[in-house]
Each structure stands twice: as structure tokens, then as C-alpha cells.
């Protein structure tokens, strides 16, 4: 019996379609095209959003909210900027909105998701544990900063994005990014001493 794997053939044809075509289709309201784009960019968006969420469900909600913003904003996307840059701008601004709207709740709630502690690839790995503990300590400090300070420290010092890129992602001027980063780092240093972490 003749058998032809249509799924593989369809995948091959789909992979040959340029991204701009998927974007155009999604902007016209084609849901399948949008879901394909979202799946492609999910890991990148999730990686940035993970610096702002404090539990896995919160992270999944934040990522979904970001993609809904992308969906709503797609008709206004102009192809003069790369799509990846545009989607990351929406993601960063979504994270900023999330920080602002959840600030009070974050101050009241416990700090860490216990599931994080169970998910180390190797519990005996000292370096992985040290990195996780460093992240938890940094989170304590970041939680005490306001949303803009936290955002700028996360983008510059944790994601290692440059001043120009941070300015583009946040919509702030480069001078504003530098000034805010300077002030935020000073606040973090003060908190670091205040909490006795330098001992």
C-alpha cells in the first residue's frame, strides 16, 4: 500500500515559509500562524519573564499575558524593526506592567517557589546550588526595589543587555537608563549592607 507522510511534508513546506509571512498572516488574525510564532518565541520570552515571576504558575500566566499583548498589538507592528526585537519589547513592557500591578502582593507573599528547590538537575551539584542561592538572595534585594529599578537591574546586570538595547526595550532614553541603573545599584548596595549580606 502506498503511504505518504503528509505531516512531514506539510512541516517541510511550513519551515520554508519566511517568518515575515507568518507575521503577516498573524497580523491579519490567522490564529494558527500566531500560535506558531508564539511557540517559536516562547523560550526567549519565558527566559526573560522568569526573572520577574516567583512561581511556575505565575510565570506561565505572565508569559500568556505577554503573548496576548503581542496578539492585540500585532496589527500595529511595522516591519521596519526585526520582529524578535518588537516581541521582546512587548515582553519587557509586559513584565514591567506585571511588576507594577503585583508590587503589594509580592511584598506580602513568601519569596520562593519550593518546587524550584526540587528541580535542580543534580542536588549534589554544589555550583548549581550556589547559583540558585545567589539568585534567591538577589531576588530578596530586587523585591525591595521599585518596578523601574528592578527592570533596569534585571536587563543590564542579569540579562547582560547593553544600555542601548535596554533603552530600546524599555522606551527610556539611554541617559535615563544609565542614571536609573546607577541609582538602583546604589540602593541594592545599601540594602546589601543593611541586610548584613556582606558579612
Amino acid at each position, binding site marked *: 500500500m502506498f503511504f505518504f507522510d503528509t505531516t512531514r511534508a506539510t512541516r517541510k513546506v511550513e519551515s520554508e515559509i519566511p517568518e515575515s509571512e507568518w507575521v503577516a498572516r498573524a497580523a491579519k488574525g490567522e*490564529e494558527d500562524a*500566531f*500560535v506558531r510564532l*508564539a*511557540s517559536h518565541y*516562547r*523560550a526567549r520570552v*519565558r*527566559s526573560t519573564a*522568569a*526573572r520577574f*515571576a516567583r512561581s*511556575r504558575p505565575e*510565570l*506561565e500566566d505572565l*508569559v*500568556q499575558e505577554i*503573548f*496576548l499583548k503581542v*496578539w*492585540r498589538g500585532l496589527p500595529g507592528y511595522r516591519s521596519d524593526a526585526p520582529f524578535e526585537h518588537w516581541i521582546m519589547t512587548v515582553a519587557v513592557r509586559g513584565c514591567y506592567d506585571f511588576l507594577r500591578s503585583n508590587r503589594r502582593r509580592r511584598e506580602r507573599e513568601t519569596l520562593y*517557589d519550593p518546587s*524550584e528547590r526540587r*528541580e535542580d538537575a543534580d542536588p549534589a551539584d554544589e555550583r*548549581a546550588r*550556589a*547559583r*540558585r542561592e*545567589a*539568585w534567591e*538572595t*538577589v531576588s530578596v534585594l530586587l523585591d525591595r526595589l521599585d518596578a523601574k529599578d528592578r527592570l533596569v537591574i534585571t536587563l*543590564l*546586570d*542579569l*540579562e*547582560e543587555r*547593553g544600555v542601548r538595547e535596554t533603552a530600546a526595550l524599555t522606551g527610556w532614553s539611554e541617559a535615563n537608563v544609565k542614571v536609573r541603573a546607577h541609582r538602583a*545599584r546604589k540602593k*541594592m*548596595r545599601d540594602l*546589601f549592607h543593611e541586610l548584613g*549580606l*556582606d558579612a
Partner: protein
Amino acid sequence: MKHEDTPLDRLLAAARDHAPFAASDGASALGFETRLRAALADGAQGASSALAECLAKLSWRFAAASLPLALAAAVVLALSHRHALPDGVGGIVTQWAGLFPVGI
């Protein structure tokens, strides 16, 4: 980005290498697609309630700032129509009833 080497810098450098909630497998990607499609469907149905949601999200600060403006607008409207504020509650009701397009 940073060129200093303080304890805080070392802490940030170590934290940078930790990827929070890193595990991401095919099953969760499938869950993501399902959830996203459901959210898109909800969004299409609930588009008409967008204004109500937008209003519901307005903060109390915005409300506090808007109230004096709304009162001022009401006073200006009243003055522009009758050039004088009405006396008492009955006067206000009569005046505003006159602004409605239907007879009350």
C-alpha cells in the same frame, strides 16, 4: 556591563548563571499552545467587555483625580446652560431634566 568586583557584583554574576524555572519540555510546550488558543478564544468573545475591564483596572488615585474634574465639568455645563446654579435638589433635577432629549 559592570567592571567592579564587589561582593554584590559577585552575587549578581552567580545569579546571572541561574535560570529560574528552567525546565521546559515538549509536554509543557503543548500545554502552552492549548492555553494560548483558549485565551485567544476567550479574548475574541470578551472583546466587548474590554472597556469595562479597562475601567475596572483604573486605580483609586485616578478616581480621586477624576472626581474634582467631573464636578467642575458638571458645574461648567450647568452654568453654560442656565448661567446660574439652581437652588436646591428640586432645581438641579428640573435643570438636568431639561437637558434630556425626551420629555420627563
